């Protein structure tokens, strides 16, 4: 028990035996999954494998029927709501890019900045120099500095994806969950995004879901293959893509 506990506290994310069913359909089936500090992990798997549902469980949007979900080895994610989980330091990018369309790019970042989140804090909040620096830094990282004053609604699809990643950065979480960041991007944008994520992974733990194999190749990290709600294979991309079962259910098609 004691050694297990030590093991646990060393993990950033620890999922064990997680099952989720929707009207009898098992979206997650006895899923177990661990992320170490500073690790970047890619998740692949066919449509409906449960990748997004897994992120829903981690971020408090969906409650698992059974199973353990711990953050930093001690916080029980199945008991907390979205806001508390975000506060603990888990940030999430949605599969469909979701930014605040009627705010400027800059305000999108302002709202995401780590800081006090209570009603009366925001009512009386004043912008500070520190904040402005932090915002500029994020805007530079996501290459949107020259579009800071633009409405988010007017950004291209790829730029919205970046803005959402920028919002994650501003939040400064210790674990980032990134759902299909390059969907709808041009090849050039895809390459840039891989570079950006690798940069981010230097001081954050990151979980990336993606269907784009060349992008996953670019990331060059350990890959987990999900299928029908549980882990089918785990290892380097080369290793899992040589796996018969993975070829059968996913890559072969």
């Amino acid at each position, binding site marked *: 028990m004691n050694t297990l506990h030590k093991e646990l506290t060393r993990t950033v994310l620890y999922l064990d035996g997680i099952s989720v069913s929707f009207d009898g359909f098992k979206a997650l089936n006895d899923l177990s999954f661990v992320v170490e500090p500073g690790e970047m992990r890619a998740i692949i798997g066919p449509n409906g494998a449960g990748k997004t549902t897994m992120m829903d469980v981690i971020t408090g*949007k969906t409650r698992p029927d059974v199973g353990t979900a711990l953050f930093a080895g001690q916080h029980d994610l199945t008991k907390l709501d979205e*806001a508390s989980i975000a506060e603990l330091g888990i940030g999430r990018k949605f599969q469909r890019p979701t930014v605040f369309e009627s*705010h400027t790019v800059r305000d999108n970042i302002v*709202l995401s900045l780590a800081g006090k989140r209570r009603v009366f804090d925001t009512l009386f*909040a004043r912008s500070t120099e520190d904040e402005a620096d932090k915002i500029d830094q994020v805007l530079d990282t996501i290459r949107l500095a020259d579009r800071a004053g633009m409405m988010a609604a007017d950004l291209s699809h790829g730029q919205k994806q970046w803005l959402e990643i920028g919002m994650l950065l501003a*939040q400064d979480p210790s674990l980032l969950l990134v759902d299909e960041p390059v969907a709808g991007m041009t090849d050039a944008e895809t390459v840039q995004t891989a570079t950006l994520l690798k940069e981010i992974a230097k001081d954050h733990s990151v979980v990336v879901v993606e269907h784009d194999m060349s992008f996953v190749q670019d990331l060059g990290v350990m890959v987990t293959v999900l299928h029908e709600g549980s882990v089918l294979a785990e290892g380097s991309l080369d290793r899992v893509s040589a796996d018969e079962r993975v070829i059968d259910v996913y890559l072969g098609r």
Partner: protein
Amino acid sequence: MTGRFLRLTGTSGLILLACLLAAAVYIPVANQYIDPASPFHVNTASVVVFGKYLCFAILALSIDLVWGYCGILSLGHGAFFALGGYAMGMHLMREIGSRGVYGNPILPDFMVFLNWEKLPWFWHGFDQFWFAMGMVVLVPGALAFIFGFLAFRSRVTGVYLSIITQAMTFALMLAFFRNEMGFGGNNGLTDFKDVLGFDLQANSTRIGLYLLSIGALAGAFLICRAIVLSRLGKVLIAVRDAESRTRFIGYRVEHYKLFVFTVSAMMAGVAGALYVPQVGIINPGEFAPANSIEAVVWVAVGGRGTLVGAVIGGIGVNLGKSYLTGALPEVWLFALGGLFVVVTLFMPKGILGLLDRWRRKQIPADKAEQAGAEAEERA
């Protein structure tokens, strides 16, 4: 200083405040000093009607704050308006004192008529003006807080929320219709004499109430602007546009909704409290679900999420209504329904949106960007 004030009001807001100031000067002057035979004269009945519209405009602002900026479509704001009105009405009833028909110094006429022995506990304190004024904001505020606490915590949104707000005002209407509730049943509260010693029938009191309503409208507008321009206001818009995104960034969405819903209800209560002494009566009809829906139409027509538009809608639609109900009474409801359909289909941003589009067409392309920045500052 002026820069900061302009930022607070916005360009269209400044124009609005200027119009209010002009109306505050012109109407009393025209009423008092211009010869009644002149077309520029404003008779006292019209002063009262304008005062009423100003109260409606405050109600419209309060709805725009929750609907336009936070996406909470309340179809029950008429209830908060009516509760504020009842709180004021209760004070005015107690002010009547022994001048009522039955001459009872404590009990309002309707209680004597119902053979009540003593004043119900919840009527105590209303003889004090300050107490009643507190209740004008506290009662609607408390109802909104409790209602919102339950609804937002259970994450009731969209159509479902709208329906339960309708149910809330409907339930209150039924309750207030009952004599046993102690609010005068279906007759409501009326026959008021004076407020703070000022005779409610006097010309000067009517002008005073009208001016107070203008002041309250200007104040409500500035409060709304301060809220929507603050970072909290940005969170509200974020909730409106992408609620779950806001949650995952770490904001407790239900707290924000609760805050803005409660503030808005208090504002609606103030509007009701100013309305009652001007029209001279408050009855359960004010809780009618249709009233709340009508108020939402004002906001939609003027321009949702613009504040200034809510004021324009609140006053403009009611001007149209009083014209139509006079000229073609049977047409009004159809006109209102038609207006709503036309606005929803063709003018999603209401009258103010049309003005904005028109203004942009006037501006050469190189200045368009600047106008965009202004629009954003206003939004």
